[in-house]
């Protein structure tokens, strides 16, 4: 369980993270989403005690990260920026981290194997591809068999096989009852792995929701209708909760009712239909709408606000 209470980070005059309040529960994969520069990495660094929040606090497993007597067994972390000395071999890098907790060599070899790095274990990290670097980071995160995982953009630089490996790994870790927080700026990637979503834009919380709920609130399902008697159908469908918009080619987009009802209504009043297509808002679209609003809100604010 990860909890953030009013986390705020200011650098000079710029507020990078603004009063973030969220909870990440065990047993599910939680996607931490936001456009580039939204404050995801800064938030994760605050959770891990690398950056001190300007105000607010956070706990992992009920206490501040830095107060855990064995942090590696509590939280495994993969940070976005590479955190490895390139002159060391993968094995020595992990062994040096393992020694701080008295974790034995056998565990280091096990996580190297889990990450598919056994063959490269004694090569210096300098020669690693981006994907191998990510695998090493994941191996380090798993070192202490932690109850919580915090992974910043884990699929970055991975080949399709690696991406699939991460997805399967995250899902199985969550299924074991662990808390898994994964950041990404790609909604499509999160749609495949995450159940819960924490979405931020410009350092502010935009949504703390489930994937299904996000689609619903983002406008939900609509139905595209093309008919020569658009005005007639508009009148027939009008009712509480129904919203109809007309597109440039005269097609109707109907919210608040389903295709079956529209089809029945049209048939009962002999309105010919040329097209009747249920449409689902893609997660990508829902995400774009959500973050777009925050961006627009930000850019228009100085125009409407009082001059400073």
């Amino acid at each position, binding site marked *: 369980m990860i909890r953030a209470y009013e986390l705020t980070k200011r650098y000079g005059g710029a507020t990078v993270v603004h009063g973030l309040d969220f909870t990440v529960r065990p047993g599910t994969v939680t996607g931490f989403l936001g456009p580039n520069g939204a404050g995801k990495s800064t938030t994760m660094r605050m959770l891990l*005690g690398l950056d001190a929040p300007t105000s607010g606090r956070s706990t992992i497993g009920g206490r501040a990260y830095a107060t855990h*007597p064995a*942090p590696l*067994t509590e939280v495994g972390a993969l940070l976005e920026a590479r955190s490895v000395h390139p002159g060391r071999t993968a094995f*020595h890098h992990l062994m040096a981290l393992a*020694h*701080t907790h008295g974790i034995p060599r056998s565990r280091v070899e096990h996580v190297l194997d889990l990450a598919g790095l056994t063959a490269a274990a004694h090569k210096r990290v300098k020669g690693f591809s981006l994907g191998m670097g990510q695998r090493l980071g994941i191996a380090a995160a798993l070192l*202490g068999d932690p109850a919580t995982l915090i992974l910043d953009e884990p699929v970055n630089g991975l080949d399709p096989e690696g991406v699939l490996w991460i997805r399967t790994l995250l899902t199985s870790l969550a299924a074991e009852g662990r*808390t898994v927080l994964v950041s990404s700026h790609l909604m499509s990637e999160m749609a495949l792995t995450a159940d819960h979503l924490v979405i931020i834009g410009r350092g502010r919380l935009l949504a703390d929701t489930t994937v299904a709920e996000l689609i619903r609130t983002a406008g939900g399902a609509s139905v595209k209708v093309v008919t020569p008697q658009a005005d007639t159908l508009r009148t027939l469908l009008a009712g509480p909760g129904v919203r109809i918009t007309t597109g440039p080619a005269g097609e109707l987009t109907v919210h608040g009712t389903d295709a079956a009802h529209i089809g029945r209504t049209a048939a009962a009043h002999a309105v010919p239909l040329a097209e009747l297509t249920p449409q689902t808002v893609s997660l990508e679209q829902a995400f774009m709408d959500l973050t777009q609003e925050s961006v627009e809100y930000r850019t228009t604010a100085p125009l409407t606000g009082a001059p400073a």
Partner: protein
Amino acid sequence: MTTTATAPSPYRVTPRHVLRSEWHKLRSLRSTWITLLSAAALVLGVGLIMGTTYTPGGGDADIDTVVLVLYGTVLGQLCVSVLGILVTAGEYSTGMIRASLTVVPRRLPVLWAKAAVFAATAFLTMYATALVTFLAAQLFLHDTEQAAALTDPGILGALAGNAAGITLLSLIALGLGATLRSVPGAVGAYFGGILILPEVLGMLPYDAVDSALKYFPTQAAGALGSATPIPGAAGTVPALLALCLWAAASLGAAAVLLRRRDA
């Protein structure tokens, strides 16, 4: 709060574990061995040159024997100081520091362990180098006024003092590396502030400056590595004390900043 982990974990961050980790870090990098071997080779090489080219009754006759055979210390010490800087600033330049501080979030044990492991390694390497260099140089000095044995008064102490001087100077460098978080920055500050600045100050025509300068790091380190008292230099104990204070100040500043700053 309910997690799968039911059995209490046997793993824990302890000072001993952090020391072991830092020792593993130090020995698993090539740069460690390159800098230490270079330091040892330079000291030994210069020592052999001093021994083989020594002219009895020449201008070097009244120089302290240990100082004479360990002339290469000036060069060797640079290598060890660079290693000290790499130990701390090297973690910042590579990003390794984020991994180090994530696994030991209390932070300070990392700095203390780095300093301890580095100091022990540097001291033992340079003490062994000093012993070997002294014995090798003496092979050529046995029938000159510079002939001395390890058992002669002050010799073993001066050899150990030489290694201690190098170690403490390099600890200042290690602290600078942690404070400035940049290898080139720390190398510049070390060369400019610790090695060159005292030389420049020494040119000023004030007696007070001269008496203060003998407690500056390089001069104090020089006083430690002499079997006989050097005229105008600080005594062994005050010099050691001064050098320890410099190292403590450098590490102390690094510790304060390590606690305060975002990693």
